[in-house]
């Protein structure tokens, strides 16, 4: 029982982390990114390659992959998203355009991964030492994943809520039209937000690859779960994403343990549906 709670929190912690990335991209850059999960999977494979062929530990890999995620997303925003933002007459049009373009991007990333690594399940063994936590045994890599997620998530919250830079980003999220009146460069803010989202996706990929198997086609599922967490938590709400992420991780772990591992996605969907019926604006959403 306690073992499942710990495992659920580990999984939920990573969900909360990646969902924060997605909610920043959607809330600030106004891009609904359907290729988000594939970015995570790409980072999983990158970590795998660094670890197995170059013996670089996943912790060090973070130092390489997180800046790469930031830089690559920055380029993607400049090349693909910026023209769409510029031509969109309203927010609805941008939403549709961004959904379509990132849907295309999803297939590109997935295609590249399939070409390079094939469609099989991949994993590696790192820091698999059993550790005793509150009387149950948990794999070291899981614990490490949780600690990393919490640390990076906390760092992000501090940046968003305690720095000038974070205030600018939040201002753009709240009032994209009036932010320029206060001398805020919304284009730069959107680009930065999109890139931060990419960096978080990369972080998520590294962390997840430490304790889970992954396939080139699993991106859809990660995007889906991150989207559900964002919606459950209330669009743009960071505390909401954390609570909803942990909740989803626990639900999944318990369903896998007590019902059937094949039904986890169904369970996630059920939670999503029930919540949509009761609170269409999310747990922390405004009416």
């Amino acid at each position, binding site marked *: 029982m306690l073992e499942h709670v710990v495992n659920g929190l580990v999984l939920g912690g990573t969900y909360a982390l990646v969902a924060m990335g997605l909610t920043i991209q959607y809330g600030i850059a106004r891009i609904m990114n359907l290729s988000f999960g594939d970015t995570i999977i790409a980072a999983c494979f990158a970590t795998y390659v660094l670890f197995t062929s170059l013996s670089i530990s996943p912790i060090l890999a973070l130092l390489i992959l997180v800046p790469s995620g930031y830089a690559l997303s920055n380029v993607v925003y400049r090349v693909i998203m910026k023209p769409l933002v510029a031509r969109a007459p309203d927010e609805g049009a941008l939403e549709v355009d961004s959904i*379509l373009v990132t849907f295309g991007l999803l297939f590109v990333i997935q295609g590249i991964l399939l070409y390079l690594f094939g469609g099989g399940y991949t994993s590696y063994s790192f820091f698999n030492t059993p550790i005793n936590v509150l009387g149950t045994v948990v794999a070291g890599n899981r614990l490490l994943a949780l600690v990393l997620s919490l640390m990076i998530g906390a760092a992000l919250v501090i940046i968003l809520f305690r720095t000038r830079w974070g205030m600018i980003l939040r201002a753009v999220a709240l009032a994209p039209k009036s932010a320029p009146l206060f001398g805020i460069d919304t284009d730069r803010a959107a680009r930065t937000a999109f890139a931060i989202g990419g960096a978080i996706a990369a972080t998520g990929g590294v962390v997840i690859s430490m304790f889970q198997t992954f396939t080139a086609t699993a991106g859809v599922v990660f995007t889906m779960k991150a989207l559900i967490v964002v919606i459950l938590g209330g669009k743009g709400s960071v505390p909401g994403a954390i609570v909803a992420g942990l909740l989803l991780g626990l639900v999944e772990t318990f369903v896998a343990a007590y019902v059937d591992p094949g039904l986890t996605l169904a369970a996630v969907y059920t939670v*999503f549906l029930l919540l949509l019926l009761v609170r269409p604006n999310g747990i922390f959403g405004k009416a």
Partner: protein
Amino acid sequence: MKTSYAFALAGAALVVLALAPMFIPEYWTGVLLGMTGYVTLATAWALFSGPTRYVSLATVAFFGVGAYTVAVLNEVMPYPLVLLCAAGIGMVMALVVGLSTLRLAGVYFVIFTFGLAELVRQTVSWWEVNVTYTMGRYVFLPFEGRHIYWQLLALAALTFLIAWAMGRSRIGLALKALGDDETVASHAGVDVTRIKLLLFVISSTIITLVGAIQAPRWTYIEPSIVFNPTVSFMTLIMALLGGAMRLWGPLVGAVPLFLLFEWLSVSFPDHFSIILGLLFILIVFVMPNGVLAKIDDLRKGGRA
């Protein structure tokens, strides 16, 4: 007058297409079959997603359900009844999805449909493994390519007829209006949720039927074959290329793209998905409203 000419022309084209398998080699009948399937999928998709701008990413969820229904039921009941069952299941699924998401903002619908295919695939797999203990099924129906082709052609004709009639009806007008501004449409008396639901159900039922009719082509069916996300993707890209707001748009997009994809999948099997994705991004960039709208723009530009 103009409509009756158009109808005569469409009827003649239909007759020629129906007779084609008698004169062309078997391989090309297969190509025509696949093309007709995608023309129907893209037209049915655009029926709902075009005017409402609710981008449905769940095409293959319905398509796969149709195919799988045939795989499960083809040995226990007569074929027409199997098709009816497939249509019924697709309809119920569309009702459940629509009722839970269509009264909310469009983005919830997109997100829900985005994961729907994966959800259905996993659930069907789970069911097969744990309840029926059979992974993969055989479809033995006495159909050759041309039989399937004729069924698809009939369904395509029906889909066009529905789309045409819709465009001229009150419902078609309401659909365009709510695509522009749901609030205004509802204050003009349009029950927006009901109209969206109705169209989504019609569109999804047709898509389910395409999957059901095509099922005998595979002979062997398992979830990963019939729930292949590429189907959703190709449908979307075809409808967008031609223009999802026009009756003939999806057709104009589907024919050349289907031929291109046939060639690509044979010539570059390993890079297929990458090329597809890049092509798609290009289309969204260059022709956001489709080829037909682009041609209109160019013509107007030329005159001005």
